[in-house]
């Protein structure tokens, strides 16, 4: 299948959009993902509001070659850790008096 993906890439390299050639890359494979804790997020979201606050769950960026490049190019923290609950309070916008998010059916805006 990799050969077919390569053939598709070769075919699409010559496509022009808006007067420029489009760029084609092989997508990211799962072992190179920086954040890979979908199951934990699911588990966290299934808890009750009290359970979420008490869970104390956290995540950290995985040390992959990609995160090293991100660090080199944009100065991203290599050992980034975050807490689910603090992300959740940003979405709920109950952190302080200022609104930290806007969520409706077609839009989600996160402010800082």
């Amino acid at each position, binding site marked *: *299948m*990799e*050969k*077919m*993906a*390569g*053939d*598709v890439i070769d*075919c*699409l390299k*010559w*496509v022009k*959009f*808006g007067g*420029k050639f*489009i*760029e*084609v*890359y*092989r*997508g*990211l*494979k*799962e072992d*190179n*993902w*920086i*954040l*890979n*804790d*979908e199951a934990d997020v*699911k588990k*966290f*979201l299934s808890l009750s509001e009290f359970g979420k606050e008490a869970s104390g769950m956290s*995540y950290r*960026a995985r040390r992959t070659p*990609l*995160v090293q490049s*991100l660090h080199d*190019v*944009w100065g*991203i*923290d290599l050992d*980034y850790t*975050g807490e*689910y609950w603090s*992300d*959740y309070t*940003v*979405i709920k916008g109950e952190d302080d008096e200022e609104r930290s*998010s806007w*969520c409706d*059916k*077609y*839009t*989600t*805006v*996160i*402010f*800082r």
Partner: protein
Amino acid sequence: MKRSGELVLPLSNPDFEILPSCWYNYTQNYKKNTMQAKRHHDGKGINAKISLHNAPRVGVQKFVINIHWSSANVNFIGDDCAANANTCAVDSKDAKSIVPGDIAPVQKPIKTWKQRSGILPDHDWEQGRTNAVTPVANLFFQSKTTVETPMPTEEVTIPLLDSSVAVSVTRTGQAVNLIYLPHYEPETVFHCFNELFLLLVQPSLDRFFRNPETGALKNNFVFIVDNGPSEQPSSSMVQMCLARLCKFLNLDRVTQVSFAEYNSKRNFVKRVHPQVNKALSAHGAFSSHAIHPDVKGAWRTRAQ
């Protein structure tokens, strides 16, 4: 036909191009002794010089009450980002339909002139993911604004001071396609989320993410998406990812916005798909059985 083309061309803008096949389509597009010839009153000395062909049956089947609001919202965000291009990065993304292996990648509906029982649905082709490749299209969005009247010029000051001018806005930009094997790499929330990091480190896309004034990462990210399960803005999993992205990349604002149901065709990145389809259609079927020259694995050593 020829005359109509010769009439139109001297009167139009210098960069307006029209193919002779297009003149034909819009004037006398029927064969003698056909149903279309009858509809055009062929042989009766009447020629309206217009096409009586039906418009393509690709209209919106369902009326969605939110469509105006959601489109206006996206357009406003687009204009706002175009006015603040130094701080805003806009990525319009969509998974283009799959490219199945061993059969024609772009299937054409046959006999479109025959009456059908309605509108052609968007997704009625082979959907198996086993022997397929999915290109995911990303369009790094730029707006080109041109004043049309009274004189064509590219110098536009926003906000517009004069209401008598007509302005045309072209949504264009750099298109990027990422190729996935959906059988092994299904499209999940974290899959879409992590692919942004891959784009962030591509040297050729650096200019879309770097603020030319400060040289740092732009602090305003906008994603225009479809309402697919892995990216719809109202999903709480997606919201968790956005909050995380905002902190991880130290951004000021992250926006994920979509169009109303059944209207994802308004997404700007969809303009890239026809070009891609053209190339895939010209190429023909891709073999899914060919073996990559660099492949390594146990079965290979056995075969040797």
